[in-house]
């Protein structure tokens, strides 16, 4: 085994280490909890041959490795968030040993407490609004006596107008739905719409919203957004949650 380091998944409050006994990190290595001043860093051993600087530079370029690391990281965060108030860390936060983990928790103690205060008892919902898949582009008319250039340009303009109209409707629906969701949340964020090449769906995303919702409000949040979406048949939505509060775990 090559030299190891400590990979940090999340920082939590009120986490009992024994609750993580059945949970593993990378390569089925058991998780450990490094406690310091009331906070718990959830860590596991990783080999520097895989998570060292040089190795990471190479591994992060490997999509299969990245996907595995991302899913493992995400899986542990979900587990921790199900047990305690949890602030997820960004992927590949690696410290040399437990003392180093403690030093970092110590240095950021106030900020981490503030983040945990913000997300305590709350979970995140994701609302995505998708415009209708774009209509087929107008076929270019074959040159013929009956079709003048002016006709052609007019048809192009009309097609562009229809596309624009659909787009504007979708954007307007996104505004309405974002407002409804925000009204039922304690905080909200608009994230960059995801690339259709990555989502695998042709419909353009016009809203990628994140909402922080109180523990006892999940059902009313979901119902309110679903009801508002019912009224907008010009768009489709993806409503997912509750998730760990990734979007709201930000150091200010």
């Amino acid at each position, binding site marked *: 085994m090559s030299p190891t*380091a400590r990979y940090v998944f999340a920082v939590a409050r009120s986490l009992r280490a024994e609750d993580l006994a*059945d949970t593993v990190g990378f390569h*089925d290595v058991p998780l450990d909890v490094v406690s310091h001043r009331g906070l718990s860093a959830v860590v596991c051993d990783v080999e*520097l041959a895989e998570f060292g*600087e040089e190795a*990471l*530079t190479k591994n*992060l*370029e*490997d*999509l*299969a490795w*990245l*996907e*595995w690391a*991302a*899913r*493992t990281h*995400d*899986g542990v965060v*979900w*587990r921790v968030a199900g047990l305690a108030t949890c*602030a*997820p*860390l*960004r992927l*590949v*936060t*690696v*410290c*040399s040993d437990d003392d*180093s983990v403690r030093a*970092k928790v110590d240095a950021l103690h106030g900020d981490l407490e503030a*983040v945990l205060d913000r997300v305590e008892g709350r979970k995140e919902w*994701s609302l995505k609004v998708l415009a209708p*898949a*774009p209509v087929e582009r107008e076929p*270019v008319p074959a*040159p013929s006596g009956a079709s*003048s*250039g002016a006709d052609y*340009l007019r048809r192009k303009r009309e097609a562009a107008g229809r*596309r624009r109209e659909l*787009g504007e409707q979708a954007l307007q629906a996104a505004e309405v739905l974002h407002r409804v969701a925000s009204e039922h949340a304690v905080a909200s964020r608009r*994230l*960059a*719409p*995801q690339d259709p*090449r*990555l989502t*695998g769906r*042709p419909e*353009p995303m*016009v809203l990628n919203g994140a909402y922080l919702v109180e523990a006892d409000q999940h059902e009313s949040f979901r119902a309110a957004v679903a009801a508002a979406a019912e009224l907008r048949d010009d768009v489709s939505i993806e409503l*997912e949650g509750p*998730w760990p509060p*990734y979007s709201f*775990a*930000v*150091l200010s």
Partner: protein
Amino acid sequence: MSDQLTPLRSNGSAPDRPSYGPAPSNLADILERVLDKGIVIAGDIKVNLLDIELLTVKIRLLVVSVDKAIELGIDWWRSDPMLSTSAADHELADENEQLRARVRELESESESERARR
């Protein structure tokens, strides 16, 4: 998990999976969560986040049928800098088409002009 990602997982080091955790979600959601969000603490292993951002861009290119997406007119929104390049290309193509049509129109006009004389 979208099917189109499966072939990309083909290298031998195929990932072991945790047996618990979230319902399967698509790679876009997962990467957004773990790369773009979460607390940033500088670890002892220095990872250049810029490199990671570049990587996600590369993934976008890798993942699926770029041409399909552009064909479908995604660039119409131009919400994404990755897409605006292709949007610009498309616009150029549109403009070319329109210019060609306009030339045809002018040509036919001057033709009929000549015919009248």
